[in-house]
């Protein structure tokens, strides 16, 4: 019993150390050898551009739901004019970064793990090492850089589309004054709100690339190993995004 507990504890501490080292080494490599611009652009296309459709779709419906819920809640207090503020602040501070990151995790995070995992089990990573090349330069750092740039941009698109989704429901369907919708929004949203959204989505980009690459890099044997790594990657990334969001919000508020 005590032995088993000790084994689990040592294993957990070792895994945490390995995960932390992976992140530190990735940043070291970003500074030392960031990879070729072509590779980074390819990854930005994969993580960013190819996620656009799902981001726009999610953002539009999130904004529309916020418009609907916000309108009926504010109507109870006769403050329908504040709908623009409610929608914009919810999206810019919280929902935009978090939902955009969760969507990218499902679409690109899982694919990153599967790609690197398959390269691991088919000895392609070993082949890079035997050529005296650092696999991080080719497989990890371009994905980190691409995710750190793409996530804030996707989050900005999410916010804008979401605000117009709220406008569609609030102004066009429910009759809120269009001037009030945007005027109240402009009055209430300050630079600090935008800044907190950018910081959050940037750090979520780091989490997606970190866990996605780590789980793939240390994937187990065979197809089952890659499948397990992919599932673990999506679950762990999603949980980390939500936990990290809480701590970041408490600091940035």
């Amino acid at each position: 019993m005590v032995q088993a507990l000790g084994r689990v504890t040592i294993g957990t501490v070792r895994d945490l150390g390995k995960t932390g080292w992976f992140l530190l080494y990735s940043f070291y490599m970003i500074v030392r050898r960031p990879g070729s611009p072509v590779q980074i652009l390819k990854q930005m296309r994969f993580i960013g551009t190819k996620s656009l459709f799902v981001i726009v779709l999610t953002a539009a419906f999130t904004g529309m739901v916020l418009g609907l819920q916000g309108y009926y809640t504010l109507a109870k207090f006769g403050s329908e004019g504040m709908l623009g503020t409610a929608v914009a602040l919810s999206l810019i501070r919280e929902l935009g970064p978090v939902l955009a990151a969760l969507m990218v995790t499902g679409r690109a995070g899982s694919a990153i793990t599967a790609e690197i995992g398959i390269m691991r089990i088919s000895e392609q990573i070993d082949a890079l090492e035997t050529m005296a090349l650092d696999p991080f330069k080719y497989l990890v750092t371009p994905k980190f850089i691409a995710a750190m740039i793409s996530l804030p941009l996707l989050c900005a698109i999410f916010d804008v589309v979401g605000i117009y989704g709220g406008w569609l429901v609030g102004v066009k369907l429910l009759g809120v004054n269009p001037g009030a919708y945007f005027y109240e929004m402009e009055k209430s949203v300050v630079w600090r709100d935008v800044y907190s959204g950018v910081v959050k989505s940037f750090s979520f980009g780091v989490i997606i690339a970190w866990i996605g690459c780590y789980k793939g890099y240390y994937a187990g044997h065979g197809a089952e190993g890659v499948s397990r790594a992919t599932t673990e990657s999506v679950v762990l990334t999603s949980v980390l995004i939500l936990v990290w969001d809480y701590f970041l919000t408490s600091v940035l508020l």
Partner: protein
Amino acid sequence: MIRLRNVHKSFGSQKVLDDLSLEIPEGKITAIIGPSGEGKSVLLKHLIGLLQPDSGQVDVDGESIVGLRRSHLNRIREKFGMLFQNVALFDSMTCFENVAFPLQEKTDLPKDEIRRRVLSALEDVGLRNIENKFPDELSGGMKKRVGLARAVVLNPKIILFDEPTTGLDPIIKRAIHQLIKDTHEKFGFTAVIVSHEIPDIFDVAQNVAMLYRGKILQHGSPSDIKNSTHPAVRQFISGSLDGPIHMI
């Protein structure tokens, strides 16, 4: 020369290499033979630092590669080329890009010269007009030959072959063995081949070492091994079910 001294390696409770010592002479073809699952590929990965021993030493040209920093190890790895059991071609690249990759990353050669060397390396292994194909579009034998072209393109001092003919038909097998002999004659590298192709491997190798239960049972010329009196070596060479090696 590559020298392994008292190397131990275990995975969990399974002992794979047990106080193994072996010397691999420079400029010759050394074959490592032995039953499946006895750690031949593990031994090969120790030679290039893909695996580190639990204890013991691995020396390459008199320099230990155990516990080295990555940058230092990479300097030694530049002497090596490797053909993997599953070839390990980059599946997102064409054959041309696969063979060109080491040249692009490790040299400052102009594009035209890289193109010339890649086409020449592919031609040396008997492949033409496949440069734009992806590895998935090739047969097993063709993939092995592309892998061989990638392994020799930087003209390394040492080349490791991990079961280069596994899963190939007898004619392609013979062709790959001949190709290894021809490229060895042309470039004069040190070759280490993990194989269980008996008796073909005796025509290719100049030295043969038999690995069994984590140790080198016997090491010598092909004729020494063929005329061995050791019961396990004799059983392995004859492929007999009777003897000290129990696989089933």
